[in-house]
């Protein structure tokens, strides 16, 4: 039985804010930017009611800094932005990655480059989300394709960032941000929420970046007596800076090893009718929604079409893609950019697989009919 309390008709950006609250987010710092501002607006209403703090900072850089600062205090924190703002956040995002400070950053993608098209959708930040900050760094990027999934993926973003101490990006486009769908609210206490592993061991000889079995160091909460040092410089297990080649190598490899070790924790994808598919569509977000429509129509016409949809886009689910495209002669990659995810798909598909792009860069989303037409052309 649906009621107004359990089922809410809301836009994607509000679902994101409510997901954050459900996940235990207690701090949000943001700066106005289209098309993500509704997240900040909703957080400004929800956080004070939930023992949390909302602050509108002086700029995008400051809001990212404040979020990392709040998390350094042991609090679950988040910010939200769009393309140009996301560019500005990159340095402090890199700090969070290097110092392993949990945080969630939402990027509601709009047309670019530069100011681009603030009110039009795009998927042009696929590469920026992975490689926007400098240096070899770890990051997780989640790409929901519906309003209910924005809600649940925002919760998962908090769980992952807390559990693995890696920044998590929730990446979706303007259409999903403003699309209104029904979201079922979880019953109180029904969610499995994760909190970072706070240091419990004796403060004497405590090593804040100790190489533990699970590669995720314990988090020393300020005030708990550890008095540790946190820095964006490459550091030793004791947290202090080092340029010793062995120590630096060890630190970077521990962080990448952490990601290799915990694939089962963060990997997520959807493979729809891929087993017998001659053509597999690989898409995320609003483009995956269009692909779903095309798939239904083409299957009804007897075409063997499948859909592979990374939900965790980065690190890219390469094994799952390989399995899903095993029988496919062709992989079609529809995306709202000039060809970004297709590079990753090409990298992981057999050399014999024909990987084809379907791109729109004009501020319009891709219609199901466009995908259907393209596939008919490909099988001709």
């Amino acid at each position, binding site marked *: 039985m649906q009621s107004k309390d359990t089922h809410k008709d809301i836009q994607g950006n509000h679902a994101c804010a409510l997901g954050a609250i459900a996940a235990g987010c207690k701090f949000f*710092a943001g700066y106005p930017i289209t098309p993500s501002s509704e997240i900040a607006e909703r957080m400004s209403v929800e956080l004070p009611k939930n023992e949390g703090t909302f*602050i509108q900072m002086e700029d995008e850089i400051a809001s990212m*800094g404040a*979020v*990392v*600062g709040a998390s*350094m*205090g042991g609090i679950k924190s988040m910010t939200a932005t769009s393309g140009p703002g996301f560019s500005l956040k990159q340095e402090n995002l890199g700090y969070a990655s290097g110092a392993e400070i949990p945080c969630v950053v939402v990027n509601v993608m709009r047309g670019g480059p530069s100011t681009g098209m603030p009110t039009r959708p795009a998927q042009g930040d696929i590469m920026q989300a992975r490689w926007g900050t400098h240096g070899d760094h770890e990051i997780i990027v989640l790409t929901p394709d519906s309003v209910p999934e924005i809600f649940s993926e925002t919760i998962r973003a908090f769980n992952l960032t807390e559990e693995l101490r890696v920044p998590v990006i929730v990446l979706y486009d303007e259409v999903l941000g403003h699309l209104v769908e029904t979201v079922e609210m979880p019953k109180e206490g029904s969610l499995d929420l994760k909190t970072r592993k706070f240091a419990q061991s004796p403060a004497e000889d405590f090593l804040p970046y100790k190489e533990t079995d699970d590669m995720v160091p314990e988090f020393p909460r*300020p*005030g708990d007596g550890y008095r540790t040092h946190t820095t964006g410089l490459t550091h030793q297990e004791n947290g202090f800076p080092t340029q010793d080649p062995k120590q630096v190598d060890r630190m970077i490899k521990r962080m990448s090893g952490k990601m290799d070790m915990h694939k089962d924790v963060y990997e997520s994808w959807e493979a729809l009718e891929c087993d017998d598919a001659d053509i597999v569509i690989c898409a995320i977000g609003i483009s995956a929604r269009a692909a779903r429509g095309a798939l239904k129509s083409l299957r009804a016409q007897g075409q063997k079409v499948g859909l592979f949809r990374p939900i965790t886009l980065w690190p890219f689910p390469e094994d799952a893609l390989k399995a899903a495209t095993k029988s496919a002669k062709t992989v079609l990659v529809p995306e709202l950019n000039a060809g970004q995810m297709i590079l990753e798909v090409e990298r992981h598909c057999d050399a014999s697989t024909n990987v084809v792009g379907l791109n729109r860069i004009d501020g319009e989303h891709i219609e199901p009919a466009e995908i259907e037409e393209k596939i008919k052309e490909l099988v001709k």
Partner: protein
Amino acid sequence: MDSSNSADSFNIRDYLRLEMFPHFLCPGCGHGIAMRALLWAVYELDIDKDKIAIVSGIGCSGRIGAYVDANTFHTTHGRPLAYATGLALARPDLHVIVITGDGDSLAIGGNHLIHACRRNLNMTCMMLNNEVYGMTGGQASPTTSETRYTTTSQSGSIEPVFDACALASAAGASFVGREVTVHTPNLKDLLRDALDHNGFSFVEVLSDCTEVFGRKNNLGESPEMILSQKSKMRPSSYGSANGNIVDEPFRPTTLPTGILTHKERAEYGDTYRAHVEKISGSVKNG
């Protein structure tokens, strides 16, 4: 103050990570004196080391936090005030101290400084002004005096100089002060008052960079440099009658020291929490 410690038993070693020494600052650098004054003030106020969070940016000033036995956060260039804002709001139980430099807070981080002053969130910002980007090899900063030689002003700087204290006061900071390192006990007193102030406090410390600034400008060794700074200072009582400093944002050749601005304004965290209570109350009432 009842909880305060007496001045004569201060031992700086109690507040340092001795295993980090020898430190990496250049001989003659004034930053160590400023750190001593800060820790002396912390001692006098008897602040629990576990509750101190030092947040610093990038540059020579950014590195000194690592030598302090507290919760220390060495953040990104120009952004320590942004990080500190998040930390102080999330953890009002912590005593947040920002250590920054003239380039860190007046150039790349200028926007954060003026908004931190405006907001009046409880923290103390100690700016170490040595007129130069020392870490990167001596480039001109917003406080490099006109005509001074730096590696990016090789025929003498032609840019006007920021008066950081005038800027902080104009932006609304409720506590602003300045001191030179040679007056270490005065600097300690100033920092103690700043730490004790409920709101945003800004203290400019005129430090000296002998290696890459003094040498290039023939200013002598550290003693000559700090004595010359002292000679250009005047106590704040010579300032305007209301204790507030000049409207002019550019620095005069002689500078007032001591407490330059001290006013009671609502602290941001208190205001936020009271506001939340009011909202929750109105929600409950319906």
